[in-house]
């Protein structure tokens, strides 16, 4: 069957999709978006977390056909998504002259996330050293970003709960907690 939906702001069409196929498979194998990771395939690990119409879900548990006509954001689109969100709240007042002069035709590859910069949560993960092998990172980024959108001043308990569906086998989670606290602090300072 054919599935039409929007991924990271762009209309996409996947052909020859098997009816029992997951959204995760379509993203990775048919649309060339391998950011969402395939690990447990049973909703235990959260490494395939994407936003479906804004809601964080395990894409391995969404049948591809269920995504028809809907809006998906993956980790590849997180930077753009975060930028548009902060613009939507009036945080950016147009393009400065300097920025305009430095403009480059990047983003031709924005579907892969390359050349589109980093979202604040991605930068915070790097700065806090929250990435080790990196396999769980995309899911954690999507989940953490959504929590900070909903809850700008999370307690540690809020962070733990929001990330409770994402397993990391490297870090022991402490650096991940640091990263989310850092992103929350920067967000509230408007950095």
């Amino acid at each position, binding site marked *: 069957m054919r599935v039409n939906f929007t991924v990271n702001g762009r209309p996409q069409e996947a052909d020859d999709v098997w*009816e*029992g196929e997951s959204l995760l498979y379509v993203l990775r194998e048919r649309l060339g978006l391998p950011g969402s990771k395939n690990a447990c395939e049973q909703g235990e690990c959260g490494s395939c977390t994407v936003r479906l119409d804004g*809601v964080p879900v395990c894409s391995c548990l969404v*049948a591809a*056909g269920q995504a028809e006509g809907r809006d998906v954001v993956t980790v590849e689109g997180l930077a753009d998504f975060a930028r548009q969100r902060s613009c939507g709240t009036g945080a950016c007042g147009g393009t400065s002259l300097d920025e305009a002069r430095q403009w480059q035709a990047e983003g031709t590859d924005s579907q892969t996330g390359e050349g589109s910069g980093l979202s604040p949560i991605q930068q915070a993960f790097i700065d806090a050293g929250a990435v080790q092998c990196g396999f769980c990172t995309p899911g954690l980024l999507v*989940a953490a970003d959504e929590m900070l959108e909903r809850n700008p001043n999370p307690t540690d308990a809020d962070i733990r*709960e929001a990330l409770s569906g994402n397993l990391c086998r490297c870090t022991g989670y402490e650096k991940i907690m640091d990263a989310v606290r850092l992103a929350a602090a920067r967000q509230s300072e408007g950095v």
Partner: protein
Amino acid sequence: MDFLRPASWEEALAAKAEHPTAVPIAGGTDVMVEINFDHRRPEYLMDLNRIGDLTEWEVGEDTVRLGASVPYTKIMENLRAELPGLALASHTVASPQIRNRGGVGGNLGTASPAGDAHPALLAAGAEVEVESVRGSRRIPIDEFYRGVKRNALAPDELIRAVHVKKADGPQQFSKVGTRNAMVIAVCAFGLALHPETRTVRTGIGSAAPTPVRAKAAEEFLNAALDEGGFWDNGKIITPSVAKRFADLCSAACNPIDDVRGTASYRRHAVGVMARRTLTWTWESYRGTRRASEGAA
């Protein structure tokens, strides 16, 4: 495999009548696991996500009509006052990602003894609204579970909603697992006080082939509370009464040994949860009694 995408409830019923083997999929948190692992290859997969009213709920005079696909997240956020037991149970379901997709209809459709909603539904008192092209009927929750992963649905029927009695007293839910998140219950227990009828109802999960009530324990406790005038005098429940209640709840179990726990552990843990949830709810009942007396 064929993917059916009914745009309305009527279309879904017609499709289910035409293809009784069609597997309905809403949140997908059970069905997709089985497909991903090749445990199941249904001939027809029927997506219910396009049917908007399945994700809606209505708070009525005595009951809440909860659409089959209302995600657990919404129950936690919106129905904590009306359905406290179910809201607590919802909060223990898996993870935020799963709670954003899964709902009570799926729990009922799968009818796993470990489904988290079941003890809360049994304790609160509920009816499952099912429908086919032949008509609609309501199945009392006590008659819904028919065996391990078997329920009272006919092949052409779909679950539309569940009607849960609004809480008229404190409710609690307790679950045993290896950690707080992402846990399939080793066993679970729900308890609801119903001061209006002066009864207590229970629900046991994952400790018998189906979710069950501890009916002998309920009868014992109802009689003991009545005899001692507890509902009126609001006294602390006698430890011997709590102990006997817990023992009878353990005795209502018919568990198995499996990877998550042994039968004897489950029986023991259900007793502990029964005593604790009774204490928690009763203390809460005494607190509200005192508060209302103080105000009067």
